[in-house]
């Protein structure tokens, strides 16, 4: 029962954040880049969330930030899923030397945690928002290759795939009409759980100042700039921090629920 409630709350939260990302900027009362008043006004002095250290409206920055953080995580996840699915599929179809190489490389990369891999990438490329997205997209790929490969391998062992193969279907045809089609559900659950990781990764790197430009209204960036005022203006860091945590939790729970649903039965 508690699981059900968690799922309902998580769904509501995710829908709310998505709505915020789509319509938030339209509802924002101020430009998220320009000062609107004195710095560090409290929520009581300047509703609903006060102003940040440069006098910008925090509520407007949070609203724009929803779109910024969510779309960045979405882009990074898309990159990871594209790379992961393609290479995972190739590894299943070409079990000989090519699959071996892909798996060995993915396993080697997995020795380094994804977030660290992403940081190494940013260190090499120099800070920047696009670099952060690319880094998280690439950093998550090795894990995704392995997981998607195991899903594909399971399906490739099914009787109907053997039948298709016996009937003379080519590798591409098997991949498209049988493996990918039947892997949609598990892949979706995998991608959802991964989205939570990507969201955490993006906000972690931007919190560390790796976005390059501290004026970007993004939840990790906003939390970082509020960090220096934890005593005088705690809401500056607490609000974006809470939003990030709740969003990660909610998406993660949804991902787990999807995994349960698409778990092979029988």
């Amino acid at each position, binding site marked *: 029962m508690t699981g059900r409630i968690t799922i309902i709350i998580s769904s509501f939260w995710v829908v709310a954040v998505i709505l915020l990302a789509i319509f938030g900027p339209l509802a924002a009362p101020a430009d998220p880049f320009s*000062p609107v008043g004195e710095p560090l006004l409290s929520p009581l002095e300047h509703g609903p969330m006060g102003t940040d250290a440069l*006098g910008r409206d925090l509520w407007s920055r949070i609203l724009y930030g929803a779109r910024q953080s969510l779309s960045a995580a979405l882009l990074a996840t898309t990159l990871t899923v594209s790379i992961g699915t393609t290479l995972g599929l190739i590894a299943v179809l070409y079990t000989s030397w090519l699959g071996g190489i892909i798996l060995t490389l993915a396993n080697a990369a997995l020795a380094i945690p994804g977030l660290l891999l992403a940081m190494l990438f940013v260190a090499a490329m120099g*800070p920047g928002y696009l670099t952060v997205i690319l880094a998280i997209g690439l950093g998550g790929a090795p894990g995704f290759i392995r997981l998607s490969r195991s899903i594909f391998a399971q399906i490739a062992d099914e009787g109907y795939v053997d039948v298709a193969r016996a009937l003379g279907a080519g590798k591409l045809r098997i991949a498209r009409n049988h493996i990918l089609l039947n892997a949609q559900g598990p892949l979706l659950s995998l991608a959802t759980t991964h989205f939570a990781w990507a969201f955490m990764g993006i906000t972690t790197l931007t919190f560390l100042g790796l976005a390059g430009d501290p004026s970007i209204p993004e939840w990790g960036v906003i939390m970082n700039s509020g960090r220096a005022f934890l005593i005088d203006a705690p809401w500056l860091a607490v609000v974006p921090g809470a939003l990030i945590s709740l969003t990660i939790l909610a998406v993660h729970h949804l991902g787990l629920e999807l995994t349960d649903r698409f778990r092979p039965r029988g």
Partner: protein
Amino acid sequence: MNKAGCTFKPPILLILAALLLGGCAAQADPHRKLIYGLTLSPSGIDPHINASAELGIPLRSVYDTLIFLDPVTGEFVPGLATAWSISEDGKRYTFELRDDVVFHDATPFDAAAVKANIDYVLNADHHSQKAAALLGPITSVDVIAPDVVVFNLEEPFAPLLDSLSQVYLGMASPQALERWGASEYQFHQVGTGPYRFVEYIPNDRILLERFDGYDWATEIYREPHAGYREIEFRFFEDLATRAIALESGNVDILGEIPPMDAQRLSSSGEFSMHPVPIPGQPLQYLFNTKNEPTDDVRVRTALIHAVDRQMIVETVFMSTSPVALGPLSAEGFGHLLSTNQLAYDLTSAQELMREAGWIADQEGVLRDKDNTAMELTIIAPSWGSNPDVAQLVKVAWEALGAEVTLQIAPGFGPLREAQASGNYHAIGINFFGTDPDILRPMFTSTGLYNWSGYANNELDNSLRLAAQSSLDPVQRQRLYQKSIEHITTQALVLPIRDYVNLVIADNDIAGLRYSAPGWFPLLIELKPTS
């Protein structure tokens, strides 16, 4: 300092507390250890080799210099040299030295020691980042007598006396330099100052101990002997942790405190705030004159007019710093301020942009005759308040109609790399110093830090001649005034604020005062109030 733990009243507890809480007992001891916070962990701390201002905070009191710059009068006063004279051609400086000084390792201080120090600094293998440049066109040092030394110069060099008053040219024991060499000396420093160097553990601490034999205090020191037996320096690099470190008693004195924290702490009654003006260049942005559109002086002038510096100072510094009025701070260089003040004036900015061929379209975006939108890139360093200021400059230029990209460079290395790429229109960089010669590397065509790419014979000449006018202060001042007018008329730099270091000190400490360059405390004068 553990204040809360010292309020036990019942006698038995009091005795127990006295026995157990060594920290509390130490607080009443006037000879206890003082903890001074540093805000940056330098890559190396040999002042003859490394360039960080942070290293001078402890080491200014480990070394004496040949001369000192009086922070009150601005005059040079005797240090290890009792008198000095400059030859008529300005190429020969003769120093008479004290004969009663010994280094902390008991080596006597004499003319040969001075020569050994200068040779150590000028040794090309040692790659001195600052001290060698401070010596300018020096060619050799001659030992005339044990207490007379002569510096020979290739050409006159007016900043030399100022250079010799700086910690980077503090006199080190020649025996220690010889014994440890350039790679190890930073861990075994030996000077003649009021404090003795005990140890340096990188990223952890620097420990100094009072040198009880100190008997040759310069006249700028108001105390002949140090008040604290030991001073430990610890690193507090993260801005957000500094106020907490003070409040929790982990540090007694700490600089570069954010204005809001500084105000809160000083109104608590336990701490006092010491705003220390730092002479030199203000927090500023150099315009790149090699890239369009900032190659046009009208565009540069417009970009300066578009920035409300007063608002930036009020927002970021809560008015604890003055608005900068030119390429040199008012502190120390008040006589060199430009008459050409580019005030915040959006109308003039728009007018100048129109003159330069940049017309705002219906959405307010500035476009040239080819309909290309104006794109600007700002590169700002990550330290201090630079990122905050850069964001507000970005907003101001966007309000004028430019599309602005802001890039924060995390450290001096990345800043240099970004600069070397040339892909910027404005870049944040500034140096501190007490001699106006700090303009030369930045604004002469071959200068090491000519990041604006500006090259002009007239400006080159006046800055070079000013550096050579050793014996004619009036001529020197006139040349600097001329240079500063040139720099402001050409709008090469957007000055934002003069630096003020907000230092917070525990009220148990008295006598906190700083040397002329601002960053360096006169540790000898510190003493407990009780």
